[in-house]
């Protein structure tokens, strides 16, 4: 408890470098918040900042985790298979969901007028393209699954004939 360093560790819970960088980050954010407080839309910005965290941690994560649990429960009885059917469903589903998440404004046509003003074009093609990409991802995954399953069967029948 003698020197300042160990007193800081005991009281604060970490060393001085931790205190400095963490405080600096909070002060910077506080300064920005004060600066933006005068803006008419400051409340909206704060809402989007905190809303983004809530949307990820308490909506998106539970959503995809639950979807995955449901999927796992559905394909569990095939767990004996050496080639995991589960992952051949998971991968295209995740890829498709990722594309929807990133390109939602176009796919869901969320900015029709601003998009038209900026580019001179409408948002028509995106939904169909996303559906086609999704279909292509699932077909590709199914083909890989079939090829892997076939290769596995050949391998095991080869082993059997060796034994015989």
């Amino acid at each position: 408890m003698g020197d300042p360093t160990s007193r800081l560790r005991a009281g604060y819970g970490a060393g001085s470098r931790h205190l400095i960088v963490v405080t600096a980050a909070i002060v910077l954010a506080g300064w920005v918040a004060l600066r933006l407080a005068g803006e008419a839309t400051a409340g909206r910005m704060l809402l989007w900042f905190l809303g983004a965290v809530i949307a990820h941690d308490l909506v998106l994560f539970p959503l995809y985790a639950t979807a995955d649990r449901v999927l796992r429960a559905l394909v569990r009885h095939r767990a004996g298979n050496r080639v995991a059917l589960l992952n051949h469903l998971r991968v295209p589903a995740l890829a498709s969901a990722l594309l929807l998440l990133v390109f939602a404004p176009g796919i869901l046509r969320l900015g029709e007028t601003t998009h038209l003003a900026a580019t001179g074009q409408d948002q028509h093609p995106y939904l169909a393209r996303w559906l086609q990409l999704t279909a292509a991802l699932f077909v590709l995954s199914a083909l890989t699954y079939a090829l892997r399953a076939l290769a596995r069967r050949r391998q095991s029948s080869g082993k059997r004939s060796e034994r015989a």
Partner: protein
Amino acid sequence: MATSRPGPDAGGIDAPTSDADGYGTPRRFWRALDRHRPPGVDAADRSWRSPLRGPWLTAVYGTALLVTLPLVIVTGLLDYAAYGPRFDQAFPSDVGWLRLPTFDWPTRPSWLFRVTQGLHVTLGIVLIPVVLGKLWSVIPKLFNWPPARSLAQVLERLTLLLLVGGILFQIATGLLNIQYAYLFGFDFYTAHYFGAWIFTGAFVAHVVVKLPRLITALRSRPLGAELRTPRAATRPEPPDPDDLVAARPGPATVSRRGAVGLVGGGALLLAALTVGQSLDGPLRRTALLLPRGRQPGPGPNGFPVNRTIAAAGVRPEQTGPDWRLILRGGDRTVTLDRPGLLAMAQHTAALPISCVEGWSTRQTWTGVRLRDLAALAGVADPAAARVSSLERAGLFRTAMLAPNQVLDPDSLLALRVNGVDLSPDHGYPARVIVPALPGVHCTKWVAEIDFQGRADG
């Protein structure tokens, strides 16, 4: 049942060494908080089943972000500099002491802005799966009890809110901006600029605090061996002080190689669907889900438009035979019509036009050199030039050009593109094109250029 794993502490190098229990002052308070476990936290603790979560996987995702995010931050700040903060035309213009040293944005190489903004937007999109993977790997920490054992951990949790909120806010506003869906209802520039600073501050703090942990974690399992381990041989990592490893992990349904590959594959998929908007030729169409993967039409004017003539509110009669270009140089005023401009020495240059929204295209422009117009206005050595458009309103109806941008031999008042007249959407009768200048400052439907001399500059 409370967890019996080692108590977490605030971070790597600064980890407490003398206090085995890790509680800060007031000790009694933190201990009481730990003891009063709300219903459900133990159930939540037991519900984490993935055997992949652990310091190694978090460190791999973290390393990818540690290497690439600084590039996104720097290219973003360069984009701000390219807008010309010296002329108060970088947004937001009033940023207090969060202002970087100002410098004249160069005109060479002409692809400079194409690269900085292309990298910023493309990399920002490509990193989304890595950010999501990283957040997945640490999400149990959100539901840990106690939330903190010391003031250090309270402050660190606050910076984590800034870190996670910051990156998600930047991703969300950026994605909506490049796809023209302004759902948020606040000024994009202001929000994205200040959001970047909040994120950067928290990012630096997080790296300083966690870097030693990251290095230890990466060393704990050799990368090569881990990437050769199949699903059947994938085992959980040993319990760690950060509580990332699940208390009761289930069997692996994916190997660590698979988890890294999944995130990497997602990043590659997004890259494949994004780079097209920075490429010319047939590859442009590969940006299937982005506005700038499409060509607005065939022919020499069939390249992406930013802001149509209709959206800009410029009426066709304003751009007809009655259109005049006014050049000002101090007291001197020169008025030119389009045939007059076409009678001047014409120069042709292949230059990219690049938008801060992450797309670019290289076209061949023909027109009068800006420096010839400056000389005609009697200001051969201008301090700046103010270019005004026929547009009535809008953030970019005027743009200031720095001396190097006026005097570059390829800086043009373009009248034609790819051998034909500019189309109305591309700025007919005349538009500015300057090497490495952001597209929005390459003013279309130019009405007036005011060359400011050194004295009145």
